[in-house]
């Protein structure tokens, strides 16, 4: 009952025209950003953070979470129409979405993607509410040792999900953690690795680093591979899937939504893995597995429901524990900090209107996405066909002004460009960038809690505290497991 009242309070936050305009704007921007190949949800949110500076914190976070949830659907538009996924997770949608377009059924492909995204997104939010609230209550009792262990577990999981190269994912995390030690040490007050520069006393600001790593580096990478040709979008028919066709995929949507949300909860897993696993499960259980890859609506529904529902799942550790589970969550964490808010259990206690406002906004954003998707797909397609020669300079311009706006500092601009170059080099040599960001974001949390725990109770606390010990053990296992797996594969 208490939870129901809180949700009602969340909807109360949305009363008035401002929050609704913010949600609609967020959904439109999210769909467009997601649809543009090269702009991932994290890039879109990072680029839009500067626009939220002077907004009240609640509205700013509603804007950014609306962008987050809509960008996952947006990715499917170009995936279905031109076989160019706007987001990494939409690559699974393209497997069956594009064949549908080739068969002249683009409307059906887009329609089923939209419905699956809406239901998946809604299911994800529902599970988010059910999980995050009790988890936050439990987390109020966590000690510094527990927080250290949880943050380390999050980082270890992210590294172990580094699919192609776990070693490089771990290096990326450690690089991020090391970067975060630059500046005044918050416990002892000692200045570390500042090379005498006043600008480095506070360390690198998070937002310029995020913009550099996510947006500027993407432009460099795209420019390197750029052929100068833009994809030509074909004409889109308006024929939506029939009710019968929808009924046929309803169980797929439901199952994939649950899979997506659960996978989304695990740090590092994210929308892409959720979409792949869900697609695979659906194919195995389908009565028409031979249709997969040839324009199966079940395939499109599975991928889209899973990737959209993973958003709700990924927000569970962020909101309840303050531990970002994905790159976009890391950017959102930065946005929280920018507005002097710290996600975690205390946020539920001290600023419930923010948390429940976000929950309510996510539910409303899903409906807005459905309506805009049904009527606005033609317009979105027109807008995303903006030539790369215009898009890339604009991304750079937004990135530069956005990084300056944080502290009105040109040092932040140079840091943004520097991180852009680092991000490009990392990507070029197959070092994932998202773990760097997670390292930067979680660096303080890991270090401060580790040192506080040791100062209060000595190193033995990590063995005496049962939760910390168990979580550290799991973190160690998830760290070792990928190496063990590689070793076993090689042995075979």
């Amino acid at each position, binding site marked *: 009952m208490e939870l129901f009242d809180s949700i009602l309070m969340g909807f109360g936050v949305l009363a008035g025209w401002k929050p609704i305009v913010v949600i609609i704007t967020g959904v439109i921007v999210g769909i467009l950003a997601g649809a543009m190949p090269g702009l991932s949800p994290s890039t879109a949110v990072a680029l839009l953070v500067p626009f939220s500076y002077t907004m009240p914190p609640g509205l700013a976070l509603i804007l950014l979470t609306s962008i987050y949830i809509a960008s996952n659907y947006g990715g499917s538009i170009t995936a279905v129409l031109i076989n160019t996924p706007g987001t990494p997770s939409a690559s699974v949608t393209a497997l069956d979405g594009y064949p549908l377009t080739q068969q002249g059924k683009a409307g059906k492909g887009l329609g089923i993607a939209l419905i699956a995204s809406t239901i998946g997104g809604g299911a994800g939010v529902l599970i988010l509410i059910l999980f995050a609230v009790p988890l936050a209550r439990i987390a109020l009792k966590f000690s510094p040792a527990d927080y250290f262990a949880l943050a380390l577990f999050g980082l270890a999981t992210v590294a172990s999900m580094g699919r192609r190269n776990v*070693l490089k994912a771990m*290096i990326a995390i*450690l690089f991020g953690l090391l970067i975060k030690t630059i500046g005044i040490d918050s416990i002892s007050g000692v200045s570390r690795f500042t090379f005498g520069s006043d600008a480095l006393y506070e360390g690198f600001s998070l937002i310029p680093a995020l913009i550099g790593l996510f947006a500027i580096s993407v432009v460099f990478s795209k*420019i*390197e591979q750029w052929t100068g040709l833009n994809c030509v979008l074909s004409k889109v028919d308006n024929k939506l899937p029939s009710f019968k066709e929808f009924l046929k995929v309803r169980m797929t949507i439901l199952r994939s939504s649950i899979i997506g949300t659960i996978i989304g909860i695990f740090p590092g897993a994210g929308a892409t893995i959720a979409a792949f696993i869900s697609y695979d499960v659906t194919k195995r259980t389908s009565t028409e597995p031979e249709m997969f890859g040839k324009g199966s609506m079940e395939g499109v529904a599975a991928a889209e429901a899973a990737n959209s529902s993973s958003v709700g799942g990924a927000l569970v550790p962020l909101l309840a524990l303050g531990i970002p589970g994905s790159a976009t969550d890391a950017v959102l964490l930065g946005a929280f900090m920018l507005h002097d808010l710290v996600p975690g259990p205390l946020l539920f206690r001290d600023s419930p209107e923010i948390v429940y406002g976000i929950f309510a906004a996510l539910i409303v954003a899903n409906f807005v996405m459905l309506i805009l998707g049904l009527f606005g797909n033609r317009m979105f397609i027109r807008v995303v066909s903006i030539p790369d020669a215009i898009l890339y300079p604009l991304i750079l311009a937004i990135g530069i002004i956005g990084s300056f706006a944080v502290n009105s500092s040109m040092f932040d601009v140079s840091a943004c460009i520097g991180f852009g*170059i680092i991000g490009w080099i990392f990507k070029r040599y197959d070092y994932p960038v998202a773990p760097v960001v997670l390292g930067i974001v979680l660096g303080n949390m890991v270090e401060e809690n580790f040192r506080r725990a040791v100062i209060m109770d000595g190193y033995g606390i990590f063995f005496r505290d049962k939760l910390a010990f168990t979580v550290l053990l799991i973190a160690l296992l998830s760290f070792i497991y990928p190496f063990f797996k590689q070793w076993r594969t090689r042995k075979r």
Partner: protein
Amino acid sequence: MGLLAYFSEGTGLALLIAGLFIALALLAVVVLRYGKREYFGQIMAPSSLIGLCIVFFAITFSFPEEEAGPRAVPRLWIFWLCVLSSMVLIQIFRRKAAKDPAPGRLGFVFLMIALLTGYYFAIQTAGYFLSTFVFLALLMHILGYKNKWIIYAVSTGWVIFSYIVFYRVLYIQLPLGYFENYF
């Protein structure tokens, strides 16, 4: 330890950084000239990280020594970063690592970095608005966009948008350079 402490600040640190730059440059020459050209980037990336770790490790000697003090955690990250970077290098030398990606339009990327750097300095002298207009127009032109009117319209549009949204609405004091008195 006394020797390491010498490299933690001042002249010692400068010498250490210079020495590492020379070492990395020599490594680059050796890699390019003696057979591992296709792994150049894959070798230089972890080697540079190890170089960074050496510098940071030396600097930690200037921090106070205490239990769970300011040097503890950075050293932990440095240790693991060195170990894992070395493992990547070992993988390369055992030929179990991927080669460098085929070079794309690297010249374009370097040109863009140079333009961004120029833009960064131009903002401080010529002001944000003028330098942004020139930067956008120039970049679109370099990237091969043909329609001049669209180029000017987009550049002007962005400048007006940033003036209204950032300068007027969000009150962000964008650098005005020589034009400070005109705003």
